[in-house]
């Protein structure tokens, strides 16, 4: 019976402390942006979530590759867990992006490179689950899922660059925040908050993937015991 590793408990506690800490840092320590006001602060977690999501999909692709090479189910479990968690972070990124955009540009949706890429990415990885659910054996789910995860990850940077190119050819009058964190000059305080958020979200990512992985282990074990 997969026991919860002590390291994971440690990680849980760490996340429970650091996430609120990061939030406090953002809320009270960073300067408020002149034009956009407080809502700009959402950006710290928004970018961190997007980053975590993309990292997750990278992990999933690596897991897929390892599965195809070694044919060990544990890699498939890793892949699956990473994609599920990645989809959650992607959702957070999209929703927070929309909420950030709304008061500024008075619209819920902007065809901004980041937002559009993330939405497409979400669709691609949701399709992963549709693919898996339409397959009947654990082996085929693992094998075909692995291929899909690897092919998909290649398109993530591809998609991002294509839309990025698209937007520079059509110069958008809207503020340069849409091109991402580096666009506006961050003060050192903002930088601290920014990188802290990235770090915290990365820890959170590892934590959640790990938990999801254990769930996958138990579920596999359950399937086997029946036999």
């Amino acid at each position, binding site marked *: *019976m997969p026991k919860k590793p002590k390291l994971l408990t440690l990680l849980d506690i760490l996340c429970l402390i650091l996430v609120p800490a990061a*939030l406090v840092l953002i809320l009270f320590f960073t300067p*408020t*942006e*002149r*034009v*956009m*006001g*407080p*809502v*700009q*602060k*959402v950006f710290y*977690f*928004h970018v961190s*979530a997007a980053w975590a999501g993309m990292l997750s999909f990278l992990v999933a692709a690596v897991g897929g590759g390892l599965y195809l090479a070694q044919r060990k189910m544990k890699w498939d479990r890793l892949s699956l867990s990473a994609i599920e968690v990645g989809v*959650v972070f992607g*959702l*957070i990124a999209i*929703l*927070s992006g929309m*909420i*950030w955009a*709304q*008061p*500024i540009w008075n619209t819920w949706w902007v065809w901004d490179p980041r937002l559009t890429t993330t939405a497409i990415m979400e669709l691609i990885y949701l399709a992963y689950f549709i693919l898996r659910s339409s397959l009947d054996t654990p082996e085929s789910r693992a094998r075909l899922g692995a291929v899909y995860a690897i092919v998909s990850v290649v398109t993530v940077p591809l998609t991002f660059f294509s839309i990025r190119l698209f937007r520079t050819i059509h110069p958008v009058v809207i503020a340069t925040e849409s091109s991402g964190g580096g666009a506006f000059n961050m003060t050192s305080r903002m930088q601290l908050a920014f990188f802290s958020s990235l770090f915290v979200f990365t820890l*959170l990512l590892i934590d*959640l993937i790990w*938990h*999801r992985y*254990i*769930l996958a282990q*138990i*579920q596999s*074990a*359950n399937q086997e*015991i*029946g036999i």
Partner: protein
Amino acid sequence: MADTLTDMIFGFAVILGVLGAYILILAVRMRQARSKYHVRTEKYNESQENSSR
């Protein structure tokens, strides 16, 4: 400066809300899986005992 304080609160609420919801659902799934595991292990052990008798 734009008065976007409520938007900011909304934004963070959504972020933490989605995270929280996922963690909660994950915990519930974990509990269900573990209990299923125990039930099945017991049944398995029982059937093992029965067949060895």
